């Protein structure tokens, strides 16, 4: 039997040692009426060859970004991943390990997480970071719950320019605890409407959320939002879906953020049709004991040698578990490791260079598309590597179809999230898109004139 080493004879010997005649006896505690009287209704087993062939066939029915130039972003980014990342992450000492409950046998995982926590602090400009969360959206929802734990207030200002799926996740999490979310609109610039934010603030406001670059790719004025939030005694939660921007854009910590969360997929993690991804979570030191998730700390062993352990774990389900306000116990360890390796390879100069490359290529694409007839850029705000394009006289879906006819995967049709933007596409340009691809995109977009 596949993956089971014990033969019938081995099992026989063990059953004898246990003192039972058959394995049936070991299942005698299951009442007969609860036993399945038939075999499971599943396809018969496949050999390794058969499985490989079948999986290749399934995978072959998906388009992938290696095969087609793609301009999709919106929370999932196609970035270059150096070969060394996979080689290291796929060392099975990392990927076949469990949570590092026994630190003496898990120094590899633990030190890597400590390094990851440091990198996230450096990127976000914050003082403390946890060992990672499920993804950007659940990290944001947990940040809203954390703000409530800190100040006891129940209202959260949640701009429309935050990723629509992140907002849905927040709503799902918040509703059960009676938190109220106030959605505020965006301006003609594509930025969150500061006046409306100020109008929504009160002494009941727990936190103001802002995404930057936001869902439209536009950079927000974090300083002003921080000032507004703080003047009402609320916290500023900044969420970042495209962390490559950290290489060139001022950090949220410098702008006054209290909690910074986001999606780390861009570093070392494949698109994977949406998961697993990597939620990162950082805050000011003062809030560390309200922070959800795992933390790794540095300590020493009996001989005074440095070592790492999971720490401060008494914050959540471990004590007074019925009073717990977060049930997080897993993290995305391997995804965090991939990000740590990727960021180590990029390093101080590489990250900046990568961010600049994204910025320049996007500026080039924006310039070229805005020059096309039949298109305009509805938002004037500053962007990083995504931008919104308004399609005149055609439906965005038609544009996407025309693009795919030329072998190009176009942009996200915004109508699915924003009815008022149903004539718009959200395009993303990364270092993976060559100038030739961008030119081909423009040519194919212009073709329908």
């Amino acid at each position: 039997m596949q993956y089971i080493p014990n033969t019938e004879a081995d099992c026989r010997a063990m059953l004898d040692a246990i003192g039972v005649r058959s394995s049936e006896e070991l299942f005698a505690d299951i009442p007969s009426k609860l036993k399945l009287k038939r075999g499971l209704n599943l396809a018969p087993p496949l050999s390794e060859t058969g499985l490989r062939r079948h999986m290749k066939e399934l995978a072959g029915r998906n388009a992938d970004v290696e095969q087609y130039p793609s301009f999709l972003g919106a929370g999932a980014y196609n970035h270059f991943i150096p070969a060394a990342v996979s080689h290291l992450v796929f060392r099975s000492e990392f990927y076949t390990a469990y949570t590092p409950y026994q630190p003496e046998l898990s120094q590899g995982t633990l030190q890597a997480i400590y390094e990851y926590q440091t990198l996230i602090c450096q990127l976000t400009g914050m003082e403390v970071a946890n060992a990672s969360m499920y993804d950007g959206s659940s990290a944001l929802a947990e940040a809203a719950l954390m703000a409530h734990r800190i100040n006891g207030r129940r209202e959260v200002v949640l701009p429309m320019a935050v990723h629509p799926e992140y907002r849905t996740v927040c709503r799902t999490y918040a509703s059960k605890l009676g938190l109220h979310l106030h959605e505020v609109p965006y301006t003609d610039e594509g930025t969150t409407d500061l006046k409306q934010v100020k109008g929504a603030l009160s002494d009941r406001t727990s936190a103001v959320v802002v995404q930057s670059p936001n869902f439209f790719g536009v950079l927000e004025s974090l300083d002003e939002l921080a000032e507004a939030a703080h003047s009402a005694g609320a916290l500023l939660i900044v969420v970042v879906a495209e962390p490559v921007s950290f290489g060139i854009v001022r950090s949220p910590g410098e702008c006054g953020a209290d909690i910074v969360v986001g999606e780390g997929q861009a570093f070392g993690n494949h698109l994977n049709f949406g998961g697993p991804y990597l939620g990162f979570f950082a805050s000011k030191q003062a809030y560390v004991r309200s922070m959800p998730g795992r933390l790794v700390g540095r300590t020493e062993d009996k001989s005074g040698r440095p070592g790492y352990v999971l720490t401060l774990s008494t914050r959540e389900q471990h004590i007074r578990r019925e009073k717990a306000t977060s049930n997080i116990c897993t993290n995305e360890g391997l995804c965090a490791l991939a990000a740590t390796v990727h960021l180590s390879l990029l390093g101080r100069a590489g990250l900046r260079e990568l961010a600049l490359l994204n910025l320049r290529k996007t500026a080039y694409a924006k310039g070229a598309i805005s020059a096309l007839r039949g298109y305009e850029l509805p938002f004037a705000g500053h962007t990083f590597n995504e931008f919104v394009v308004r399609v005149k006289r055609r439906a965005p879906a038609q544009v996407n179809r025309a693009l795919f006819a030329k072998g190009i995967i176009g942009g996200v049709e915004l109508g699915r999230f924003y009815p008022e933007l149903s004539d718009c596409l959200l395009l993303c340009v990364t270092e993976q898109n060559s100038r030739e691809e961008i030119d081909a995109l423009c040519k194919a977009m212009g073709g329908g004139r």
Partner: protein
Amino acid sequence: MMHEPLLFDQGSRGRVGCTLPECDVPELKPERLLPKKLLRHDIPGFPELSEVEVVRHFTRLSQWNYGVDTGFYPLGSCTMKYNPKINEEVWRLPGFSHAHPYQPESLAQGALELMYELEQFLAEVSGMDRVSLQPAAGAQGEMLGMMLIRAYLESKGNPRKRVLVPDSSHGTNPASSAICGYEVLQIKSGPNGRLDPKAVADAMNEDVAAIMITNPNTLGLFEDQIAEVAKIVHAKGGQVYCDGANLNAIIGISRPGDMGVDALHFNLHKTFAVPHGGGGPGAGPVGLKAHLAPFMPIPVVEKKGKRFVLNDDLPLSVGRVRTFYGNFAALVRAYAYIRSLGPSGLRRVAEVAVINANYIMSQLKDYYHLPYDKHCKHECVFSDARQLPYGVQTLDIAKRLMDYGFHPPTIYFPLIVKGAMMIEPTETESKETLDQFIAAMKQIAEEAERDPELVRSAPHKTKVSRLDEAKAARQPNLRWKGKESATE
């Protein structure tokens, strides 16, 4: 043993570990692209390493880590079974790993078919009607399951106030209830380590939304009265949630859906052999009976003729618990695992997992206190009661096991056994491995009597000796802050 410096204490100014694509568009200065007040100029302290330094650093770290490929990992309730290598190959096929979640459905038919089929497979093995693949982990699955129950009860006019949780439950169960706005009422297990229907009947009333049951429970025992308990709960309009973390013990033999369970989560990383990555990612799909299905998170995969589509249009949906469709790469591995084992193979998994656990139990019960001396399912629970008189505790036994080359079992859990050691061998360990483990455990029992200090001061052969966890919590050092802190 060698100490590996942190990334931040290695390298040299100006080093870079990878080559980026060339800039084939005009190289405008950043100041021309963004206003000054938005620009960042540097990240002080960020690593500056060459590729070989990075490779050596993480290779060395990997060598100080213990995984299933390194050896026996009998962590109870965590189900650390072997992770088949073919699965690691197939999820990395570009059509899976390089597919964007927002590419049109027509360009993602293979991925959607896989998800559609996996839902059917999981429904069949659990006896449920529908399955949401969205939750990223078991704990998130629990939370979603309780949200669905709450949404269902709300639709009936009253979400109710309380959730019953047995004292043998998983640590996250009460927290998952609390996050859904419920008070938790603990139910004491009966003297046989199982749920007592009378205790449930006494606690059950119209204010109780649900009971959360782990079956087999955390003592490794099958809750043989679960059907009666479910009847009691249903009679008062409550719902039954099953923590499916231990499904591997009964797969192909018995199905929670046939026991009266309304919702349960699967831990794909446990039952279906998805590697756990040092603490994640996993995946925690949720199985549901039909009456809960209208509340499922969006989107759901449906089949229209021969095509697979994503349906967002569920007016009663609770929304989402994460972006996109879940931990897809984990779903691919679980799908591959089910396809390679088939119905007979999955049943054999449960049989051998149970034989292996009972074998360990039978061989060690003369050496370690066994609080519940009954045939177990996939895991058995001992305590340190026999070693305590010598001053040797569970923690010491666990640490000493490391010197014999084994990962320790889960310790101090379940909470209802003082000094618990929860051993789960899984079906992928051979009799020889179990015999070596048993021999080591016997040896440690003997050492505890003869030379307790040897056990108390373990481990002796690991990279670091016992770590000062109290110091870590009292003076938290959670990040590198500059060269000086590295030499403290």
